[in-house]
């Protein structure tokens, strides 16, 4: 299978990060993979982390509540509040950290996400725009990203590469 490359761009002044990636599958399938929690649980967390959905209500005003579970069983609860949904086209959401009951952790900043989907010739393009709500938020998120990134990226990268790189 051909591996597609993701395109990342950052706009620090506008506190925005954009990720664009093609998938070798029709739009309806890709849309389902991003919006159906059974499928999200299968891929949303980078291994060996695991996303475990507690509740999912995919509609404007609804919420996805899931636990990002680490290899040691510890993890973080995340809440995704859907602010708008255009079926098979895109959706926007506010992403925050919370507790098991879904109460937002106000120490951590909220991120505004915009996901757009389009298909051409059986290839679906997903564009994700992540915007940090406030100027000062960027630092917190980035500091967090560093920590998570290092934890997952470095600690588990070897294991990941071993399992995924063809001999």
């Amino acid at each position: 299978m051909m591996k597609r490359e993701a395109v990342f761009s950052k706009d620090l002044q506008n506190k925005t990060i954009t990720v664009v990636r093609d998938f070798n599958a029709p739009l309806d399938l890709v849309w389902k993979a991003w919006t159906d929690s059974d499928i999200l649980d299968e891929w949303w967390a980078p291994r060996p982390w695991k996303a475990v959905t507690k509740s999912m209500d995919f509609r404007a005003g609804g919420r996805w509540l899931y636990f990002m579970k680490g290899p040691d069983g510890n993890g973080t609860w995340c809440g995704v509040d859907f602010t708008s949904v255009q079926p098979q086209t895109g959706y926007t959401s506010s992403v925050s950290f919370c507790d098991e009951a879904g109460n937002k952790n106000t120490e951590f900043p909220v991120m505004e996400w915009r996901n757009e989907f389009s298909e051409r010739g059986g290839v679906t393009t997903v564009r994700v725009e992540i915007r940090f709500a406030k100027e000062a938020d960027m630092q917190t998120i980035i500091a967090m990203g560093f920590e998570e990134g290092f934890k997952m990226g470095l600690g588990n990268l070897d294991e990941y590469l071993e399992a995924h790189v063809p001999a």
Partner: protein
Amino acid sequence: MRRDVFQAIADPTRRAILGLLALHAMTPNALAEHFDSTRQAVSKHIRILAECKLVEQRQTGREIYYHFNLETMKEVDVWMEQFRILWEKKFDQLDNLLENLKNKKP
């Protein structure tokens, strides 16, 4: 509190200072002239930038010049790289999953 490059660039005035210093090194006075804020406020920003090693102070003759430190700015790219690795993993997982789903489809 620990200062880091991300905190430094989170502030618009500090970004403006860095923008000026990226063009060429400047004395504290020359730098302060570009801003409406007091010299004191500007030097406080400079101090934070210096603590984060984004700006270096060098003596040239009798004058002190502030220089932009490109190496530190690269930390942002290191973070971006972590972010990228994370997402690449997720996308690879999704690729495999989509392949399976496609095959299951009638």
